[in-house]
């Protein structure tokens, strides 16, 4: 598969701060690729390095196989949708979108045709002569996307473009953006701190922390098989159980957590005796008869129950200081009550051994 964006050991320092620290990524053509992480993790700087707004302290940036490490933004086949949108207030919608085409001296008839087509694409047909301040937040958003897409970039860079919208509009725009990307087939690199957004929209996600990439994978794997403690807790919730490797069991590991021998799946063979953490998602913790069929199954006491609408959060004490959080559908709760005894369990593939 063709690689559109390639970062090789890219580092960017701002004074003493290593904002991006040895990041290597390969993003394929037509991919919806997200950079996900908390603020200050270097995701926006990584995006700006791809766009040419920052030049790396070391490392190489390639676009479609061409080394563009030292090229300014106007020499790169990328276009950016800025977090603050940065629409030009002195130009109307048409002229905002036509800006890039006019700079490249595209003939006027083509400019008009392409601008109208891309405005139709983002559902803004008929808004050509509107002024920027006459548009709603969602409409401004779409103008910003149209202004970038009309140039037919190899890669579209999006810096938290939905951050300023309210929740309902954000969800609608997420679906629209995903559909749009599918239609145009352009490679999207999308920066967000919203894990839900990244999981819903992305083909692949790179989770970043302190300027480094923690894990690159498809959303299912990021969620189902987090590589590190940070990934396990930043995306969704996880019970973290600390213990030692006791041995192997087929394709899994046996981990001793207190007196409990837990069967879990490990990425690579950790030697017996190594200290490891096992992550279990709260929704994977079963109770009652469902628990009895699981590879890991123990008696426990209900500490607390919190009704949250569709789900009920349940604190379960296994003894020896091991407490699990379970998230049960409200019809699974049955006759659970605080202080009552219950059987707790989870499947082997739902306990993931993290790399420290």
């Amino acid at each position: 598969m063709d690689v559109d964006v390639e970062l090789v050991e890219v580092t960017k320092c701002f004074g003493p701060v290593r904002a991006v620290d040895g990041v290597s990524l390969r993003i394929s053509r037509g991919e919806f690729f997200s950079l996900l992480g908390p603020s200050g993790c270097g995701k926006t700087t990584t995006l700006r390095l791809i766009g040419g707004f920052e030049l790396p302290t070391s490392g190489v940036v390639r676009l479609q196989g061409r080394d563009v490490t030292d090229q300014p933004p106007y020499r790169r086949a990328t276009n950016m949708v800025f977090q603050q949108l940065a629409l030009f207030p002195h130009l109307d919608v048409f002229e905002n979108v036509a800006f890039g085409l006019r700079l490249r001296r595209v003939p006027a008839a083509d400019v008009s045709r392409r601008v109208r087509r891309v405005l139709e694409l983002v559902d803004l047909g008929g808004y050509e002569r509107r002024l920027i301040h006459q548009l709603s937040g969602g409409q401004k958003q779409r103008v910003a996307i149209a202004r970038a897409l009309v140039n037919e970039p190899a890669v579209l860079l999006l810096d938290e473009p939905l951050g300023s919208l309210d929740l309902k509009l954000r969800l609608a725009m997420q679906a629209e953006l995903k559909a749009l990307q599918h239609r145009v087939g352009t490679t999207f690199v999308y920066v967000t701190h919203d894990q839900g957004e990244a999981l819903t929209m992305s083909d692949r996600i790179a989770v970043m922390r302190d300027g480094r990439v923690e894990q690159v994978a498809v959303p299912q794997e990021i969620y189902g098989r987090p590589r590190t403690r940070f990934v396990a807790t930043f995306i969704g919730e996880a019970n973290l159980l600390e213990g030692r490797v006791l041995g192997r069991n087929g394709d899994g590991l046996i981990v001793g957590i207190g007196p409990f021998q837990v069967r879990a799946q490990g990425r690579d063979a950790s030697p017996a005796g190594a200290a490891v953490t096992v992550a279990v998602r709260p929704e994977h913790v079963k109770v009652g008869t469902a628990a009895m069929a699981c590879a890991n199954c123990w008696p426990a006491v209900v500490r607390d129950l919190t009704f949250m609408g569709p789900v009920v959060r349940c604190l379960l004490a296994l003894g020896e200081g091991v407490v699990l959080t379970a998230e049960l559908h409200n019809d699974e709760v049955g006759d659970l009550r605080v202080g009552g005894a219950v059987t707790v369990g989870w499947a082997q593939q739902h306990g993931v051994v993290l790399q420290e």
Partner: protein
Amino acid sequence: MTLAVPRAVPVPRLSRRLRARYAHLGLVAPALALSVAVFWLAMLILLVMSLYPFLASGTPRLTLEAWRKFVGDGYYWGVVGTTVYLATLVTGLTLVIGYPAAYAMSKIHRPALLLGAYLILFSPILVSVVVRTYGWLLLLGREGAVNYLLRAAGVITEPLPLIFNLTGIVIAMVHILLPFMVFPILGVIGQLGPEMKEAAMDLGATRWQAFRRVTLPLTLPGVVSGAQIVFTLTVSAFVTPFLMGGGKVQVLSSLIYRDMEAVNLGFASVTAFVLLGLAVAILLLSNRLVSHIYARAEVERV
């Protein structure tokens, strides 16, 4: 006998609303009174004086003689021309010098450096115009520092005539009025984030194209108000043109001074009105220019 219990009379809604609406009038009253009494009344008296050249014959009579004299004599149109030429030149030069200065200052982020830049640029305002003009006379004179250095460097053999002519006036006026150009431009550039330029460059604009097509149009309101201030201050300036011109360059303000000295009040009044007309015309013209430029797109206030 029953005593009528006095009840609190509620303030009628309308009057309360009216009071709220006109409360701020009290705040403008002193300024308004001053403006009406001193400016508009004075202008009225001036108009009357331009039409009644009294003192001359004893009995005042209505005559357009002073106006006719001004309009009919090419010399006075020449003075108007010199005044407009001077103001245009000074406005243009302060713009050419002031815009880059404002642009550079907007890039300064270190507070100490910024304070230093402000001090350098704006401290001359604290010194009297008379003092600064005499300073320029000393610097630019035949034996002044500028001519001395140019001769020492071998650039010239004879001293350049830098005072008692238009050149001297322009140099001194540009220096004196520069802060009035920089300040409005600085205010507008400061509101402009770096992302506007980045967006333009992302869409294929070089640095120059980004400036030409985005930064400049968005800072134009600042440029226009700076130019308006500098232009009107220049056409009405007296001290600097008078001292630096050394009587050899006539502008409208020095013409008024001359006629006042000669107790030719009628003619001085006419000149004053021409000066006022000039300033008003320029303001209207530049406002039209701005609204024309922004007819299709207004500046968004975020």
